[in-house]
């Protein structure tokens, strides 16, 4: 499709939907609050709005169409269609969050049951499903850490958070936003976070260690217990970023390594759809000593009836409106119930097997490597450094060219510690045949890069649009984050 911008399809007088007329006397607004000019929204018939978005959707790649193993760290797995049914049911979609508790016993029970399930998976004492996403759960954890230290009179003293370079940037960024100084541990020569650096960093100013494991490289830190002990020894808390717990479900648990807090992303490990970047869902798990600080309200069960408990004086309060991202709580619960303990373990094992199999295929492509060896769990951060040195083609360019074959990959977060990075995570959802096809596409593009690097650099050739000139996007005089800005700057 060569689909125009929606404003270009507008024709005055057309309408996409009709609105009920008031049917009661109109209200005259004072001039101070009355809108002067109608907003310049598009005017289109209903079919034309629908058609526009259907066409745009066809210019997008979801898990439902693609072999989505390239979005490493994101756990792009199948979101079962049956779970969408539950959340589209009026029994979820048409519930108001402030209804009386006894009219929402079903949804409260789902919250309560999912909390118990995640507590068992993590070994934690309680779990809050309020955070809106993984990063929001990280922030909630920081807020609880802050409240915990404050409750002990150490709020001012403990002003540092330690994290690692291969933990998600939100660990550092949320800590900073919450007022902490951030110390980042770099990987040692084996790819593990440097324990000596931790020893040096830890101390009376340490509020917490925020760490992912396995890190975004797919490398599991075998000395994780020691990391936790070191922090505990200094009076700090240990917080486990389990955004991606897909490879270790039923294998190892946050509590067993001594963590005080952890979080899950419902939209990664627990299959809720990624939705172009949310609505997502986070879960913050805490040990008993952190439980009083959980966001409120909590869902409690008295043996016959579920209710909301907002009377929690030490709580950090609200992280977001109401109880949580309910549709994703429902989906995640249904997903676990479709698998059970044995199924979850099969998820983890298959995710790890798939990853190791894919690694085996990728590393057979000349020019691809996996720094720090081949011991990986659910994902791998690879490098095209070899290919780049040989051909001058960057990883990003390889990725764009691969898109011409219907697949995609993500490089990595900044900074690129692994040079020319690409991060693959096949999860349990893909078949061996998918992995073979994916690897074959990358092998083909790598070969193309060797034979005709300019061709690869000129990609894409088979997408909705051609190579994008990014220069204007960072120039305040030219950038156009809205059509309004664009028309003013470029069409006036």
């Amino acid at each position: 499709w060569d689909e125009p911008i929606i404003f270009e399809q507008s024709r005055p007088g057309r309408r996409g939907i009709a609105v009920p007329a008031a049917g009661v006397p109109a209200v005259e607004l004072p001039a101070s609050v009355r809108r002067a000019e109608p907003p310049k929204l598009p005017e289109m018939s209903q079919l034309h709005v629908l058609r526009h978005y259907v066409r745009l959707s066809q210019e997008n790649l979801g898990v439902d169409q693609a072999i989505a193993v390239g979005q490493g760290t994101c756990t792009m797995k199948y979101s079962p269609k049956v779970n969408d049914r539950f959340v589209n049911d009026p029994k979820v979609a048409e519930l108001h969050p402030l209804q009386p508790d006894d009219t929402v016993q079903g949804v409260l029970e789902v919250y309560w049951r999912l909390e118990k399930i995640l507590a068992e998976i993590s070994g934690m004492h309680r779990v809050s499903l309020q955070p809106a996403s993984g990063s929001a759960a990280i922030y909630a954890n920081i807020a609880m850490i802050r409240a915990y230290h404050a409750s002990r009179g150490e709020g001012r003293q403990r002003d540092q958070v330690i994290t690692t370079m291969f933990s998600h940037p939100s660990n550092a960024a949320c800590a900073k936003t919450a007022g902490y100084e951030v110390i980042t541990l770099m990987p040692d020569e084996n790819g593990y976070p440097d324990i000596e650096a931790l020893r040096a960093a830890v101390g009376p100013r340490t509020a917490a260690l925020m760490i992912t494991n396995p890190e975004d490289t797919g490398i599991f830190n075998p000395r994780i217990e020691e990391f936790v002990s070191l922090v505990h020894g200094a009076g700090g808390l240990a917080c486990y970023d389990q955004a991606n717990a897909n490879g270790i479900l039923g294998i190892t648990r946050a509590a067993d390594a001594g963590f005080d807090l952890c979080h899950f992303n419902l939209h990664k490990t627990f299959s809720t759809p990624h939705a172009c970047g949310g609505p997502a869902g986070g879960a913050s798990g805490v040990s008993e000593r952190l439980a009083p600080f959980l966001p409120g309200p909590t869902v409690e069960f008295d043996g016959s009836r579920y209710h909301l408990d907002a009377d929690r004086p030490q709580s950090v309060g609200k992280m977001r409106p109401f109880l949580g991202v309910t549709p994703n709580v429902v989906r995640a619960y249904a997903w676990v119930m479709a698998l059970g303990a044995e199924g979850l373990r099969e998820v983890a094992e298959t995710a790890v097997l798939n990853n190791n199999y894919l690694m085996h295929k990728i590393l057979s492509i000349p020019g691809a490597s996996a720094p720090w060896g081949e011991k990986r769990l659910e994902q791998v951060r690879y490098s095209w450094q070899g290919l780049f040195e040989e051909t001058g083609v960057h990883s990003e360019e390889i990725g764009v060219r691969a898109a011409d074959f219907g697949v995609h990959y993500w490089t990595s977060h900044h900074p690129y510690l692994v040079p020319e990075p690409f991060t693959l995570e096949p999860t349990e959802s893909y078949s061996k045949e998918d992995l073979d096809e994916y690897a074959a596409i990358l092998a083909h593009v790598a070969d193309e890069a060797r034979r005709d690097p300019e061709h690869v650099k000129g990609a894409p050739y088979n997408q909705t649009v051609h190579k994008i000139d990014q220069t204007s996007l960072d120039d305040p005089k030219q950038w156009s984050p809205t059509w309004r800005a664009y028309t003013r700057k470029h069409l006036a």
Partner: protein
Amino acid sequence: MTHPYIPNAEPGVRAEMLAAIGAASVEDLYAVIPAGLRLDRPLDLPEPMASEHELVAHMRGLLARNTDTTEVLSFLGHGCYPHHVPAVCDEVNGRGEFLTAYAGEPYEDHGRFQAMFEYVSMMAELLEMDVVNVPTYDGYQAAGTAIRMAVRYTGRSKVLLSGAVSADKMSKLRDFLDHDVELVIAPVGAGGEIGDVEIDETFAAIYLETPNVYGVVETRGRELADLAHGVGALLVVSADPISLGVLAPPAAYGADIACGDIQSLGMHQSYGGGHAGYIATRDEERLVAEIPSRLFGIAPTAVPGEYGFGDVFYDRTSFAHREEGKEWVGTAAALWGITAGVYLALMGPEGMRELGETVLARTRYAMDRVADAGARVLHPDAVHFREFAIEVPSSDGLLAALRERGIFGGVRLDDRTLLVCVTERHSKDDIDRLAAAVQEELA
């Protein structure tokens, strides 16, 4: 049986793959995890539902214990609103191409970039501001971030907050801001609007909501903007975009940052699952620099006349610079942005105006009828949009009595105060039914 969600759990393929990588078993691949950390028992989880049918039956059984708002007459609002959701909104956000995509590049995910660009562009028209972010989590987060933006922009750490903000939102703002921002709460005036306020050069911003927690439309925006600007502070206004077909957008009276929740624009109530936040500013580099969220912009491609898309000023973000970025960015509520775009495109300028007029008129009608029925309507002389507060002898008593009649009468603000919400979904008959019930109960 091989689980339908796990194709390679099939024993034959599993063996083939293990052989290919030269591993004897999957256990080998876990050798890196120290024995002491290994869970030595199966997880203690409920028995799974072995088949899709049994799962459906189980879930249906659970959810049947909910009474949803199509089964009763609900006047609940207070941050989550029962506006009509056009079927086309559901259709678009239900399409797997959008629902199951994530964070691809502007090539194979051109559709998402364009849809999101169009969403921010339509919001920009509604708000009369040139810069709108890719949605953050919700209106709470949007307010917190908007205030932090003002703090960073001005380099000051005091903020004057309207007191007409919901308790929950205030709780969030305290948690998010308290550690380094001093929040000064402005009293609510007798008329329901923000009361008289004073600020000086130590203030970063005035934060105002309209309609506020009582449904009252603030009319002194221009005055507050002048006050703020007079001391070098910013005016930050939280406004529900659904009101802006009839109400002046914050920019029109001088607001520097607008923010709010877009749940009204095509999202179901979903027990609080339909929220997403917007933040908008004028196109001033220093202000734009303070936005933590992604901004999607239009850009030329190798083919003249073709529109591509990309990230505007990516350097601001924590993706680019970890803790050196502005706050943080992560997965938030993109699909609700796309959906709100569909909503605005369906409505167009006329639809937004008509909707606003209907809500204004029916809110006033409900206020009058409920007052006739014997409840004391608070702030009766103020302009109300969608909500109003009433005082009754007992909040709990009246709510319980109305519930017996199949009515969720409103949200309890305190022992004697209720907040009643009226949208275009509430017909005149619905309102009359509420009023009649209130009358009988208060009689």
